[in-house]
């Protein structure tokens, strides 16, 4: 077979271009909050804390200038709030409602967007985010914030560990200097680094609804147009340890099933079955959330921990 020395593949122009390794530039989208305070069904204590948060930002001039708090509390013009509690308890809705009450727009941040596989890029993404928010006068909302604010690595063994700590340090610095509104929401506040906890002004705890709130949630999520025969008080009393989000899911599931069976009047049993299934899934999930930790003990520590040991083992 003749050899073609002018084969196309040997010419530099025909060589495939090296793939671009430039990290992507994030375009932050400024949006309007989707909820208002009146949409929230919360314990009065939680709701009042949200009002305090709003009042703080609305009355900054009164507090710091007129009443002279700036003399005692330097660098307090910014507002950092942490909304924490079990999933489905209204934290994301509340974040939107706070920002709406402040008549601001917002940037909703998912940690997956900020995190970069390139060492050092996550910090740059964070800096760019804060810059955009400042320029646009927008509040920043970090959902699932524990991914970003978790404890720093104390035993750094890799470039990744160094990068994680660098990101945390950059964020601490940004928090210190930022004069706008930042809201964090998390299901896992116990994972937060203590340095972040100190820099966040308000920590608002969201709890699972009590029987009174559950009744209101059932009433809210079942639209008046849906023909059903439901005792809301009974539903609320019978099924506890559920969130607003669980109730919303149960209503939707029951509605879909009722449509399938062409119910003229949706019976309460449909809602009970739906919420029962959700509770079962949550219980199974809770059982799987088991953590294991090991440590070695000295003989004295082992003896101190428990008294009933085989005598021959103790005296060995």
């Amino acid at each position, binding site marked *: 077979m003749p050899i073609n020395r002018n084969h196309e593949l040997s010419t530099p122009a025909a060589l495939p271009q090296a793939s671009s390794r430039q990290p992507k530039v994030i375009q932050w989208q400024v949006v309007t909050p989707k909820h208002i305070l009146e949409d929230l069904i919360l314990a009065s204590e939680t709701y009042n804390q949200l009002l305090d948060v709003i009042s703080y930002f609305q009355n900054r001039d009164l507090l710091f200038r007129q009443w002279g708090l700036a003399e005692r509390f330097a660098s307090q013009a910014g507002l950092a709030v942490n909304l924490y*509690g*079990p999933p489905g308890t209204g934290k994301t809705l509340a974040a939107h409602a706070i920002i709406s009450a402040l008549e601001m727009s917002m940037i909703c941040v998912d940690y997956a967007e900020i995190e970069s596989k390139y060492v050092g890029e996550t910090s740059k993404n964070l800096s760019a985010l804060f810059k955009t928010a400042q320029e646009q006068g927008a509040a920043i909302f970090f959902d699932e914030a524990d991914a970003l604010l978790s404890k720093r690595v104390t035993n750094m063994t890799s470039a990744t560990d160094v990068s994680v700590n660098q990101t945390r340090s950059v964020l601490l610095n940004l928090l210190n200097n930022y004069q706008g509104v930042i809201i964090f929401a998390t299901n896992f*506040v*116990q994972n937060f680094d203590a340095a972040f906890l100190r820099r966040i002004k308000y920590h608002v*705890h969201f*709890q*699972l609804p009590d029987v009174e709130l559950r009744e209101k949630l059932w009433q809210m999520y079942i639209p008046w147009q849906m023909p059903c025969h439901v005792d809301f008080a009974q539903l609320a009393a019978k099924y*506890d*340890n559920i969130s607003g989000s669980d109730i919303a899911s149960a209503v939707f599931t029951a509605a879909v099933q009722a449509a399938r069976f062409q119910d003229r009047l949706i019976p309460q049993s449909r809602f009970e079955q739906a919420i029962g299934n959700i509770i079962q899934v949550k219980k199974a999930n*809770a*059982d799987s*959330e*088991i*953590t*294991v*930790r*090991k*440590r*070695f*003990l*000295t*003989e004295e*520590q*082992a003896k101190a*921990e*428990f*008294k*009933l*040991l*085989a005598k021959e*083992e103790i005296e060995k």
Partner: protein
Amino acid sequence: MIPVILALGAVIVGGGLLAAFWEDILGFLKKAIRKVQQVVEGVLYGSKVLIRKLSDGFKEISRHYSKLGDVWQETTVTRTVPASQVPEDIRKRAERCDELDITDELEMELQSA
């Protein structure tokens, strides 16, 4: 401390909310022991069970003591449960201390299957 053999072979007898709680704890303990048996070498002697109040719910803690040669090891298995799953009496006692040891109480509830 609850010996491993007792824990794995026991049941809770009786009905009501309190019995349901002990049954649930025993179930957790059995699962934890089986998990520990998979991850540790040596002889597993026994376990303790404690409860700690969290800001949201309670943490159930089981500590398991094993020995390989001369080396003792403590393996801790934990899970989080909502407050509604913990009887009021135990809840109140757990709120007054850092960790409430319920090992002896659980051992009293155990009966051989």
